[in-house]
């Protein structure tokens, strides 16, 4: 079954329980290629390159897990990410950044390849305040890819996915054609320019 062969962590959304990072990371990073050698975009591998640069490095985003159309990232609590010095909760803007990042990655994950894109619009509903000192986990799924636009939705929580702190919906607009597959003659190294692991 083609679809299931792409599932690295084929667990229904609602059934996900937050497990220690090490336990999940090992599973999530294990399958860069499908059995027939077909190139499959691997968000875990790409993130290992991205997390060392730019905004991801500055924010300290961590990869948690992915399925064929979703990506889960973690924003570890840090004193300088606090949005309210009195309560010690992570800033709303930082949660938004996490969701934007996970949103973009889940589009590539669903596509199975990298394609340049930019966020077009992004909406966040803040359901409740995050717990003081808590990490934020952001999980975003891409539920539709049209010719020019990809549609995503997600939630952020601080330990219990059934008790979200925020819901998110966003669209991404493609800004160029898909990049050649990793390992092809046009791209023997793999990944988009500047993102090679």
């Amino acid at each position, binding site marked *: 079954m083609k679809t299931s062969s792409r599932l690295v962590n084929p667990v229904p959304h609602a059934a996900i329980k937050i497990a220690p990072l090490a336990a999940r990371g090992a599973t999530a990073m294990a399958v860069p290629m499908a059995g027939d050698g077909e190139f499959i975009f691997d968000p875990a591998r790409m993130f290992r390159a991205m997390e060392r640069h730019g*905004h991801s490095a500055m924010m300290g985003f961590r990869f948690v897990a992915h399925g064929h159309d979703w990506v889960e990232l973690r924003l570890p609590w840090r004193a300088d990410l*606090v*949005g309210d010095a009195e309560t010690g909760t992570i800033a709303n803007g930082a949660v938004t*950044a996490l969701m934007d990042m996970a949103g973009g990655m889940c589009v590539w994950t669903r596509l199975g390849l990298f394609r340049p894109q930019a966020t077009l*619009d992004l909406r966040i509903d803040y359901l409740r305040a995050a717990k003081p000192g808590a990490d934020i986990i952001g999980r975003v799924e891409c539920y539709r890819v049209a010719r020019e636009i990809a549609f995503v939705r997600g939630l952020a929580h601080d330990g219990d996915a059934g008790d979200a702190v925020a819901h998110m919906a966003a669209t991404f607009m493609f800004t160029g054609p898909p990049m050649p597959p990793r390992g092809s003659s046009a791209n023997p190294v793999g990944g988009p320019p500047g993102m090679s692991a």
Partner: protein
Amino acid sequence: MSITLPPYAAALGIIIEADGAGEDAPVLRMDFADGLSGRPGNLHGGAIAGLLDMAAWASMRAMLDAGEGPARFKPIGITIDYLRGGKHRPTYARGRVTKVGSRVATVVVEAWQEERSKPIAAARLHFMLGRSEAAES
């Protein structure tokens, strides 16, 4: 009048460029740094979101500090439109409180770089004022 921005503002390098005068909200400034970069040549959308959120917060803080409403507020939601790619240069943002009701305030905010008339992003936010069950839970 002077407001103190939350810690996250410093993490993004956001400062108050102009305190605002009269009814104007503060203008915030975020200089480019490598830690704010996204796709090659562009600011990360998350960093822009952080600036928009902070400018909206500052406009509410400034208004309420001026004694025109309750001292407490918390965001209900934000809707961001990304209009142009942000380049590797300073970005500015200013919020405007467009409505203050008894329970909810509405803020619109824009971020721009070289030209104020060419915003790179805009957002609309709602804030719950004072204490309310919907936002407390």
